[in-house]
């Protein structure tokens, strides 16, 4: 399902950001695009509204895993009452952070795949947002000998890569001494 009125949503985001940037005293500019054309290597995400921030305070947005950038994005999505399954329709970006992060995640996924294949033992990624977990799941989908799943609760959810049909050795059941 698409955002019912994208132009109105974009206007609300604009109004919201204008206030936030001024009240927070942040030196930031932004550009909002509706149905933006995306580069081919980014066809994994098709936002209906893209917000690109720039300016002297950009590094502040990207600190600690782009915490501030993601906070602004979350507040905008909550303001628009976007249901969780439609969160990918709005995308906040700054200094190409998104595509760089995508590259990073894809590389991490292929390193993890190698490791699991060699060791035969599952590999756990660090906790990630649902959007980032999805990127990892998609990156590993073509490896037929591996399986991925998300584990953990809430903000601590993470991806686990394991060999296909992997059975943990006596994790849940108590170990029996032979």
């Amino acid at each position: 399902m698409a955002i019912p009125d994208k132009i109105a949503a974009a206007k609300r985001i604009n109004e919201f950001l204008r206030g936030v940037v001024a009240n927070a005293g942040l030196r930031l500019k932004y550009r909002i695009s509706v149905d933006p054309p995306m580069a081919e290597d980014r066809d994994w995400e098709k936002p209906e509204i893209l917000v690109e921030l720039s300016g002297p305070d950009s590094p502040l947005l990207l600190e600690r895993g782009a915490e501030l950038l993601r906070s602004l994005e979350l507040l905008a999505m909550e303001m628009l009452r976007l249901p969780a399954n439609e969160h990918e329709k709005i995308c906040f970006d700054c200094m190409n952070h998104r595509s760089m992060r995508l590259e990073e995640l894809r590389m991490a996924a292929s390193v993890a795949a190698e490791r699991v294949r060699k060791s035969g033992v599952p590999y756990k990624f660090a906790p990630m947002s649902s959007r980032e977990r999805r990127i990892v799941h998609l990156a590993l989908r073509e490896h037929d000998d591996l399986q991925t799943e998300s584990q953990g609760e809430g903000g601590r959810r993470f991806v686990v890569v394991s060999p296909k049909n992997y059975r943990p050795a006596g994790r849940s059941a108590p170990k029996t001494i032979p």
Partner: protein
Amino acid sequence: MTGEQAGDMRALIEQIAKALVDEPEQVAVEVVEEDGGTVLELKVAPSDVGKVIGKQGRTARAMRTLLGAASMKLHKRYSLEILE
């Protein structure tokens, strides 16, 4: 953008809270000066408390992240409390 502009933390929290809730006229932000810094006490309609806290506290955390970044620029410590 012109020069350095000082942020207004109370206005920041009020503006965001008003954007998030169903009853913006019920949003109030009280500024309380304490030894360790300034506390912003946010009050909203009882039915709106969940909206400013969010799932697993994510919305409140996002507001605190923003407040942290903005107050760092002012070299002052601010914290946000949501009154229930």
